[in-house]
């Protein structure tokens, strides 16, 4: 029997769901663990396991309302959710633009499967889960055709940006830059260009190279309203285009900026 790649990925997606624990699993193991090691009271009080970045469970988390800043929001937005990119997008000025570049009408075409929905970037499959236990889970998966507007490239790009974000949070800028290079090769004309640029700037700042501030300044000039600027300033320090800097300092810095090639 000859299988398509889609069949294979669909099977793996099912296996991933089948391998996940439930909240009950987490509570049971924790209870047993508390009899073996001395756990802080806070662990027992609030250690209900959080879901992994598995796209299947991201939707579940979004439904709980605590993952509003997760980078993969771009893909969720494709299913009609309020997506945010790369962590810091709350309040960004161009939110409307980003939500219109995916098919907003798809939301109406998707039957509400319950409290959660997630998208597999590779298969375009959606899934919803009320519980993730192997024994107790109830799963509803709308047909792939229910998402005619889903852009698999955008979902893949969002997933990659989430990985890059993780590596930055782990203060592993070299890995982040490697992932960015890989993403640039795989999807040179992606839709999360600003997120990629911001990540690259932050990675350079974490590396502490001499050009980092130049990159940060260039990003600030090209994206003066970017929601990522505050984070970049926090990590990289004030950029030459900051209003807080004196005009003289700005002029001086602008004069020393390298030609704007748009690359980082």
């Amino acid at each position, binding site marked *: 029997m000859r*299988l398509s790649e889609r069949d294979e990925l669909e099977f793996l997606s099912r296996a991933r769901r089948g*391998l996940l624990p439930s909240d009950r699993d987490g509570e049971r193991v924790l209870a047993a663990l508390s009899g073996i090691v001395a756990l802080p009271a806070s662990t027992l009080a609030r250690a209900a*396991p959080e879901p992994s*970045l598995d796209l299947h469970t991201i939707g579940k988390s979004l439904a709980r309302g605590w993952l509003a800043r997760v980078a993969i929001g771009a893909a969720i937005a494709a299913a009609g959710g309020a997506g945010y990119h790369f962590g810091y997008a709350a309040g960004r000025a161009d939110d409307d633009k980003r939500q219109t570049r995916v098919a907003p009408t798809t939301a109406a075409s998707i039957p509400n499967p319950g409290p959660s929905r997630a998208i597999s970037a590779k298969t375009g499959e959606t899934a919803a889960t009320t519980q993730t236990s192997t024994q107790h889970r109830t799963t509803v998966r709308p047909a792939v055709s229910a998402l005619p507007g889903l852009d698999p490239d955008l979902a893949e790009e969002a997933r990659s940006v989430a*990985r890059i974000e993780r590596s930055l*949070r782990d203060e592993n800028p070299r*890995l982040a830059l490697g992932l960015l290079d890989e993403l640039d090769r795989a999807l040179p004309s992606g839709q999360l260009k600003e997120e990629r640029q911001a990540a690259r700037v932050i990675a350079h700042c974490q590396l502490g190279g001499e050009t980092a501030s130049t990159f940060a300044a260039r990003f600030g000039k090209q994206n003066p309203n970017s929601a990522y600027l505050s984070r970049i300033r926090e990590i990289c320090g004030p950029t030459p285009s900051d209003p807080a800097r004196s005009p003289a300092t700005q002029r001086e810095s602008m004069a020393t900026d390298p030609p704007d090639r748009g690359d980082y």
Partner: protein
Amino acid sequence: MDGPLSSLVVSPDLHVPRSRLEPVDFTRVYREGFPFVWRCLRGLGVRDTALDDATQDVFVVVHRRLDTFRGDSSLRTWLYGIVRNVASNHRRRSLRKSPTDPLDPTLPSTAPGPLEQVEDAEAAAFVQDFVGGLDDKKRDVFVLVLIEELSIPEVAEMLSIPVNTAYTRLRSVRAEFRAALERRGDE
């Protein structure tokens, strides 16, 4: 999971350098790492009947060694190292068990519930059987890339192998998996 395990979740305080964060504590590791640990253990061949024990073992080690975690690697990389050792021990232990051990009560073929639930569980069981036949090198790549969906550069770093080696292992194990899946379809 991510997160620190890192999987995971992007919270505002994680946007600042780690040096400005409060130290990673056990609560956080458990809360964010449990799904990652659980699924990796299953992916690495720990039987469902031993899963609770294996997960406990992992977090006992985490509890004991957390203060030695210095952040040289990501927390997830550190955690995966523990998971791998625990899974290896449990696999060896299960090989010594009597073949007359009772059947795994979670075998999907008898699990009641909606069709998709059964399909997910069957797919999980198939994957567990498949990885059980792999050598350690391929098993790591299979679990981290195809189950945990980490990128190749990330996995190469976690396993301390060149990126090209990771790609080679992935191609090889994926071909094996495809063949196994096709054989399953023929049965």
